């Protein structure tokens, strides 16, 4: 089933006309309602009435994560706050978090694209979905919830964690659709086996997994562990949350809902569009959002795209799984982590920043583990173990507060963190994703 068949299977001329129509309305709307964007558009020499088609998008300025941080909290909003119905906050690169706000229509849009996601994965009205993405400020849980509600699924909103209870609920209510991070899916399968439940003998049909990068080999592992079809969902809170793109049952690229989230793939160095099929940075314009519409948002995710019609009938452009990042962000248990956040904590504790390194590993039980190595320095070294342990505990707690991810802190001797050309290597990712 295709949720918005008319749009999702539209021919390219019709789609382009629809996108052009949206962009022609979007730019004047933003220009007249958001002073920050007005300045950006003026600086780029773009008159709000000069947009004639979607091709004009190339004349528009980019928006970056730094723009969101610099204009925190409301600078990039185009809608007044009294029209905002819901806000979500994720931790930012440094200091300010990233705030997104949805108007009532934005929430409808979110429900609509998430219904498209669930249908694209193979859900049918009447199915039961267990949503084991975190509910709360993280967009995963509620995004899935709105989509399932729109589609008419029976929702079990377990949120993330409490695995034994998740498994009990699965047995009792026999859901056919599972939504969670891919690593949590594997973790739950392991736990199920330990509890004497055979995860392959279930009621499962489809998993909709996202919020962190994962590989084809992980897909095979999940599909074998649960005896289900494992599909990939893509999204980011700045754009909408989950709901930007989704794999269909052919698992041959993620369909981007390009009538509302217009994708471009660019060379991050030259800012020029790359030829079809080549890797580049995914840039997205939200064509119909009201609360905080973004023009040419640099996702920092490296993907490739193709534009041919899929066997499922959808004509939307398809992006590959995320192949990398243009910055140093890593995703740990579905949470975005930037080294700069850890740097910030260390500066706050010690006045100046000691050398540090983040080591991420995924052990046998499939959950990511983060270890932060901190080089001990003369000025905070103590002959008393107690003081060193207190310091370590303080660093651990503060990092955990900022990242919302549990970490282990290890104090190491000076000059033991690997350096290349004088600069310490900040991230060692040992996971085979």
């Amino acid at each position, binding site marked *: 089933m295709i949720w918005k068949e008319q749009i999702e299977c539209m021919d390219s001329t019709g789609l382009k006309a629809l996108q052009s129509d949206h962009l022609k309305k979007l730019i004047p709307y933003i220009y007249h309602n958001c002073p920050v964007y007005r300045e950006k558009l003026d600086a780029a020499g773009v008159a709000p009435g000069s947009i004639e088609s979607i091709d004009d998008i190339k004349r528009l300025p980019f928006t970056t994560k730094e723009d969101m941080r610099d204009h925190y909290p409301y600078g990039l909003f185009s809608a007044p706050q009294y029209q905002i119905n819901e806000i979500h906050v994720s931790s930012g690169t440094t200091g300010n978090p990233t705030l997104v706000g949805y108007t009532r229509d934005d929430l409808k849009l979110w429900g609509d694209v998430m219904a498209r996601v669930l249908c694209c994965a193979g859900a049918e009205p009447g199915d039961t979905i267990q949503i084991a993405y975190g509910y709360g400020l993280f967009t995963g849980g509620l995004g899935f919830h709105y989509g399932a509600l729109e589609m008419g699924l029976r929702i079990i909103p377990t949120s993330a964690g409490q695995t034994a209870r998740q498994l009990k609920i699965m047995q009792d209510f026999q859901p056919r659709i599972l939504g969670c991070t891919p690593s949590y899916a594997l973790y739950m399968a392991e736990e199920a086996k330990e509890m004497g439940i055979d995860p392959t003998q279930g009621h499962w049909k489809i998993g909709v997994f996202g919020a962190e990068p994962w590989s084809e080999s992980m897909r095979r592992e999940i599909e074998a562990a649960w005896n289900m079809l494992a599909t990939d969902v893509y999204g980011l809170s700045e754009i909408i949350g989950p709901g930007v793109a989704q794999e269909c049952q052919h698992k041959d690229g993620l369909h981007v809902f390009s009538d509302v989230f217009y994708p471009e793939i660019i060379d991050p160095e030259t800012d020029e569009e790359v030829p079809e099929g080549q890797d580049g940075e995914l840039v997205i314009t939200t064509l119909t959002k009201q609360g905080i519409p973004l023009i040419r948002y640099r996702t920092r995710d490296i993907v490739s795209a193709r534009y041919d019609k899929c066997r499922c009938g959808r004509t939307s452009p398809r992006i590959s799984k995320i192949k990398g990042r243009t910055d140093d962000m890593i995703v740990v248990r579905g949470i975005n982590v930037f080294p700069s956040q850890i740097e910030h904590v260390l500066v706050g504790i010690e006045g100046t920043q000691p050398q540090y390194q983040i080591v991420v590993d995924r052990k046998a039980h499939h959950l990511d583990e983060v270890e932060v190595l901190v080089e*001990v320095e*003369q000025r905070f*070294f103590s*002959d*008393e173990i107690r003081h*060193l342990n207190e310091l370590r505990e303080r660093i651990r707690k503060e990092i955990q507060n900022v990242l919302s991810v549990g970490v282990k802190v290890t*104090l*190491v*001797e*000076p000059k033991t963190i690997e350096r290349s050309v004088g600069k310490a290597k900040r991230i060692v990712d040992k996971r085979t994703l």
Partner: protein
Amino acid sequence: MKITQISVFLENRKGRLYDVCSLLGANNVNIRALTIAETESFGVLRIVVDKCDAAVKLLRDNGFVANFTDVVAVEVPDTPGGLAAVLKVFADNDVNVEYMYGFVEKHSDKALLVFRFEDTDVAQQVLARHSISIVTRQEIEGL
């Protein structure tokens, strides 16, 4: 009189204690007293040496984190109850001991113990009042 202890941060890795000791040995620094406090991932080596300024410079120049700490070396009768008698004085006078350890070699018929106190000055006054002899820096250097 206070003496100076050197504390060195060490990761729990093979050969690190050897590295410190061989560095000091090669530079003619003699270790008089030594103890290691350990956690699951790191340890703190505490030593009293004959040439402490030179030793700390040496350690820091070789990339170790090393600090000075004031400690007091106390002579304790090497007989049953000898240490208990000294500790009773501390307990009676509210002197808190952070940690303590023994010397590698004996000084005449007495045992030598290194004490790290919460408040070194107060501890010294208490020791003096009770005529418990403490070892001077010169004596440590000449041991």
